[in-house]
């Protein structure tokens, strides 16, 4: 009997379970670490006794023995921050995965296609010039992201079918919009410029529970769409001809996936700023672990992307005493090093 179960659970499932446990461990560890020392046992106590669903902070439920200030720090500062990191990791990783699959380009990620640059430009414009008008940064980022996709499609023209053209126009758009962002930076006052710069390098420090709902919703919808079309995307990976012969509307699929990715990226950029490299790296690591089928990769990317971002956040707030580092710096530094090691060991094994 037990051997039958074991045979149903294949290595892929074991890897998923391992990744899930790694994510849970990362989450608990990140929750306990910070400027205030809260031990793992206290965290368990908090999670088992102190979290009440109606009101997290103002009243302590029965049996909760943690100091109210600590409860408040966990509930109002750490948890929203961790969830935002988690969502960012998930969103950027699955977008990177899908973009890599639909363009069959291993370098594809939200950055390469100028979506991030567009969203950044939109957000920066709102922050620098329209902050007083009460316009939301998210709206600016969404408009910017949509604009960048629009530009890219125009540039690619009718030959959108050609993946290379799509990628190249994406790169061109990315640089163009990046230049405009720098221009805005140059003309803003030092205070605003430093604020914008820090934002562009990514930060989770302004996370609140209210700010989580939109990214969570968009990422959930995006994930569902990706999950529904996973087999089509898989087929697309094998080449346009194969996909067309299977009756898949290749152009429509590619365009709609691009739009979903840009929506996810824009919402994330609006909340956390520019965080690079995750969307590129995590899908590749997942591919090394579970092969290149999109249906398998999708779940793995969710788990590993989330866990990776939690560690990045942890490093960014604990590396320097009494200071916070921008997330983007840590992602790129840690990410590239990690990636380099993996590439190196993989080559040795062959």
């Amino acid at each position, binding site marked *: 009997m037990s051997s039958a179960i074991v045979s149903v659970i294949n290595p892929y499932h074991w890897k998923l379970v391992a990744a899930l446990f790694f994510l849970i461990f990362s989450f608990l560890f990140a929750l306990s670490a910070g*400027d*205030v020392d809260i031990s793992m046992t206290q965290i368990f106590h908090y999670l088992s006794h102190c979290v009440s669903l109606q009101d997290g902070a103002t009243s302590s439920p029965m049996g909760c023995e943690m100091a109210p200030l600590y409860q408040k720090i966990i509930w109002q500062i750490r948890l929203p921050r961790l969830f935002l990191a988690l969502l960012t990791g998930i969103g950027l990783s699955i977008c990177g995965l899908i973009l890599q699959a639909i363009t069959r380009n291993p370098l594809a990620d939200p950055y390469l296609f100028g979506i991030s640059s567009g969203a950044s430009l939109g957000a920066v414009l709102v922050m620098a010039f329209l902050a007083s008008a009460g316009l939301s940064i998210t709206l600016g980022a969404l408009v910017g992201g949509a604009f960048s996709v629009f530009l890219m499609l125009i540039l690619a023209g009718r030959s959108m079918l050609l993946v290379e053209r799509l990628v190249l126009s994406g790169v061109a758009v990315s640089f163009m919009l990046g230049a405009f962002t720098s221009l805005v930076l140059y003309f803003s006052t030092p205070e605003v410029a430093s*604020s914008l710069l820090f934002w562009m390098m990514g930060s989770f*420090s*302004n996370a609140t529970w209210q700010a989580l709902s939109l990214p969570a919703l968009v990422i959930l919808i995006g994930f569902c769409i990706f999950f529904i079309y996973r087999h089509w995307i898989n087929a697309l990976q094998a080449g346009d001809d194969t996909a067309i012969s299977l009756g898949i509307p290749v152009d429509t699929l590619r365009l709609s996936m691009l739009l979903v990715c840009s929506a996810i990226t824009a919402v994330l950029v609006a909340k956390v700023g520019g965080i690079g490299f995750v969307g590129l790296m995590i899908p590749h690591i997942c591919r090394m672990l579970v092969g290149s089928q999109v249906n398998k990769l999708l779940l793995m990317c969710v788990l590993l992307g989330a866990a990776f971002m939690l560690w990045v956040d942890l490093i960014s707030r604990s590396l320097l005493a*009494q*200071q916070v580092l921008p997330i983007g710096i840590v992602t790129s530094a840690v990410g590239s090093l990690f990636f380099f090691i993996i590439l190196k060991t993989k080559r040795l094994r062959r």
Partner: protein
Amino acid sequence: MFHYKNKPYGLLFLALVYCFNVSAKEPSAQRIIALSPHSVEILFALGVGDRIVATLEYADYPQAAKKIPRVGNFSGIKIEKILALKPDLVIAWKGGNKASDLEKIESLGMNLFYSHPKNVNQVIEEILALGRLTGTQNVARNLAKKLSKQYRTIKNSYSDKSKIKVFYQLWHKPLRTIGGDNWLNSLISDCGGKNIFEKAKAPYPAVSFESVVMAMPEVIIIPDNSKNFTHKAKLWSAWPEITAVNKDQIFSLDGDLLQRFTPRAIEGLRQLCKSIDQARDSLTNRQ
């Protein structure tokens, strides 16, 4: 004494005296480029504001400073323009101007004076130095005397009082404050305050919300040049656990007075000390 016959000698004597006088002191600077708002203010205080031929953006005090031509901003200086203006003195701001620009200016052989005061005493020294360079020693000496007297008075009146924990909220998004090796840090300690991020290495560290909560500041100072004070103070309203919030000791002060190394800084210091002292009173009233 001077007889008609002696007149030529007298003139010669006067001419000699004049010559010696001129060669004894440095020629005073007539065409000055001041690369920071604070040096512009100091020059105007010395009465030689009209000799400034160029400055950078943000030099906005006194009113007349706004009319001075600009040769750049914090992200870069137009060096060719500076050369064309043929200045005989360039006052650079170490840490405020781009280092590579300053190197270039120095390599071009211009007369460069570095300014970067870290406390009120250094501002006074700088006023004296600039007085020498511009030939306004007397004005500078009087101003320095006046300022050091005011400074001593303020400092003495707070030196024996209890230390108050201060959080200086330089910017709210990201939350940015000041480190230990800093002008504002010295002002805070002059008022008998203690900057809660004194140990941070960076001059303007970005800090986490959590670390501020844990440090429990007794007063929060917010410079108002970052606009919209109510919005930023709202940041704290959810945290009555912090002493400063609980006791309503959040103050918005004029950032230009506080953050510029000028004679006006004494007024900024006075306001800062008053706020800190008010927080001190609010603490003792409770006990």
